[in-house]
């Protein structure tokens, strides 16, 4: 917890913006916008058609209103749907963009890799490959050659549409159809970039795959789309990080993430979400309306979601698993921290379809100030999902005037399955803080220890590099949250 002292204040450290020459669309969302977007990306007709179908459906539906969040109505016509920094090719990335990622702490050897100096130093063994998305486009993807040796495809979704259309065509929208919900539909119409991964049969991905999303432009929506496919007997660990400048308008982020695992394959998906949360009065911040879902298609396959959510003004997000393959496993581990005027409505859905399927949900909500923090979960055990099991644990820790809400829904349609639910809710106790302080720890340190202990089960699920980052982020977030 020594990291606390390294930060003099609790300002959002990623809140700067980058001045670079960009190509932007005028604000507005019409069928022409969608066509123009598809054209600028030189997409094949089936992608344009996919987008247009979604756009037309979007005109017939409304934003969901059931979540425990409030925000001013979004004027979709006032947003720009495309903003890309100008550069001719990936060897000529503008220095200010490289500097941006340096400032955000993307490690040096990764930055070197961005410049194309892959494995210049033989002593640096890559452990993480990165795809960097800056507003509407992917800037660079590292270690592609290294990964290609194993048959792994790791590239931007735009590149995948050009280079691997057969794979994208088969899976795009197969887990989250365009009509799934309002924000997924919007994304299907106007998605700009994102990451595509394919892990071939029997391959264990030798490094962590990481996408770093950076919103930079003002009044521009970010609509990224990620698609990860793990073929039979493969394994991949994927990490996602995100930050945005501190603007005083809300920024809309509506992403879609689809995962597919075939027989005995496993995807471990980790997120550290640190979008700009707005200021202490609730002005500005990212509206994070994200649809994430994994399909355990094959038998004995596994999908594991781990998320640490500290950012965004409003979060609406439920990473879910469809456990279709017999013996498949779904997991959801979440820490959601809200402070100030933040509002989070997050949780998961575990849909048991196959026999002997298992799911585990561990959710930790921590709320400070005037924030509100809702866990919303659905566990559905279908009539053919014999001998299935779910274990759910939801804990909330509250301070100040914050509100925590737990809304679990369980439906079970057979008699051979077992569902367990444990929940706890408590105020961060004065007694606990006094006890720790009586041993010489100051208040901030004492709060850190209690909160870190509370989140330990989830942090342990994060890959090593990410766990340290998450810990640090949590400490920075807590700083100044007390008192």
């Amino acid at each position, binding site marked *: 917890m*020594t990291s606390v002292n390294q930060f003099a204040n609790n300002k959002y450290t990623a809140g700067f913006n980058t001045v670079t020459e960009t190509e932007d669309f005028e604000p507005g969302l019409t069928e022409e916008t969608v066509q123009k977007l598809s054209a600028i990306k030189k997409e094949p007709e089936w992608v344009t058609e996919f987008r247009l179908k979604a756009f037309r459906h979007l005109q017939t539906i409304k934003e969901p209103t059931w979540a425990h969040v409030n925000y001013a109505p979004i004027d979709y016509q006032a947003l720009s749907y495309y903003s890309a920094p100008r550069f001719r090719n990936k060897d000529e990335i503008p220095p200010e963009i490289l500097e941006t990622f340096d400032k955000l702490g993307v490690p040096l050897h990764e930055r070197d890799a961005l410049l194309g100096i892959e494995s210049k130093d033989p002593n640096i063994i890559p452990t993480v490959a990165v795809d960097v998305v800056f507003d509407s486009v992917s800037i660079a993807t590292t270690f592609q050659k290294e990964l290609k040796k194993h048959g792994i495809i790791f590239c931007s979704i735009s590149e995948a549409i050009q280079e691997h259309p057969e794979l994208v065509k088969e899976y795009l929208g197969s887990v989250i159809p365009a009509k799934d919900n309002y924000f997924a539909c919007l994304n299907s119409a106007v998605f700009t970039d994102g990451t595509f991964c394919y892990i071939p049969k029997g391959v264990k991905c030798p490094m962590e795959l990481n996408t770093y999303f950076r919103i930079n432009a003002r009044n521009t929506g970010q609509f990224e789309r990620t698609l990860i496919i793990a073929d039979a007997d493969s394994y991949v660990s994927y990490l996602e990080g995100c930050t945005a400048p501190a603007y005083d308008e809300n920024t809309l982020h509506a992403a879609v993430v689809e995962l597919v695992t075939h027989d005995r394959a496993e995807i471990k998906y980790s997120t550290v979400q640190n979008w700009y949360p707005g200021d202490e009065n609730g002005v500005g911040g990212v509206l994070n309306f994200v649809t994430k879902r994994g399909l355990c298609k094959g038998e004995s396959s596994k999908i594991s979601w781990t998320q640490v959510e500290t950012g965004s003004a409003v979060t609406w997000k439920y990473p879910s698993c469809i456990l279709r393959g017999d013996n498949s496993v779904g997991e959801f581990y979440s820490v959601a921290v809200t402070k100030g005027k933040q509002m989070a409505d997050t949780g998961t859905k575990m849909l048991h379809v196959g026999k002997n399927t298992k799911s585990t949900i561990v959710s930790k909500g921590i709320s400070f100030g005037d924030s509100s923090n809702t866990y919303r979960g659905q566990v559905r055990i279908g009539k053919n999902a014999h001998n299935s099991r779910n274990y759910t644990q939801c804990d909330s820790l509250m301070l100040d005037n914050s509100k925590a809400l737990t809304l679990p829904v369980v439906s079970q349609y057979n008699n051979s399955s077992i569902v367990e639910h444990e929940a706890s809710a408590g105020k961060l106790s004065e007694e606990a803080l*006094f006890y720790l*302080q*009586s041993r*010489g*720890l100051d208040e901030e340190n004492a709060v850190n220890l209690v909160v*870190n*202990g*509370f*989140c330990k089960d989830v942090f342990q699920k994060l890959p090593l590099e990410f766990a340290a980052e998450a810990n640090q982020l949590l400490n920075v977030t807590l700083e100044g949250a007390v008192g």
Partner: protein
Amino acid sequence: MLVTQEFTVSVDDKPILEDINLDFGPGIHIIMGPNGVGKSSFAHALMGNPKYQTDGAVEFFGKDLLAMETHERSRAGLFMSFQTPTPIEGLSNFQFIKQCLDSKQGSPGITETLAKFKGLTDEFNLPNEWDKKHLNVQASGGEKKKNELIQMLMLNSECAILDEPDSGLDVDALQILTNVIQDFASNDKIVIIISHYESLIKNLNVDSVTVLGKDKTIRGDVDLAYQVLDEGFKNIV
């Protein structure tokens, strides 16, 4: 030296203790008193528990104790063992003590600290891997009491207030407790024990006994303790 002058302790503006004038030098001091008279409140108020309001003055090795925050009182050398220490999930015993030591100046290295900690858990007959167990979580009453004493020894405080350190301990543990306290006090430390147990009192070299009453406070030597144990409080305070 710990000196209280017209020390008054209240909760929600209701006085619990009024005008307490006591001094404690190096050695072992016993505090007794009828139930509910405010013995634990005295300890908590000295440590700075925000639940209590205080008045008067307390001098601690020349410093104004009441002007300090709780963590500053600890860093100045004051320690208090809790009757029912609070459980903290996810925080291991060792991680905790290491953090506490690190918050003070000149903390020893991790290897040295761990060796000392494990030495103590062995001495106290605590289960293996006690260092990894979470602080006061799924521990028995006796284990928690032992853990409090280990913290006292690790922090090597100048003055320790022990709030019923003997309750819930078995005979063997009580023996360890008396040895540890006697040994600790022999290094010029101030030990203030809130207790009613004869077995603890008779096995320690007690320097003073204070009986806190509703209307008065009586100071004496160890014979005062035996008088209380014989006759009860009613004839004394």
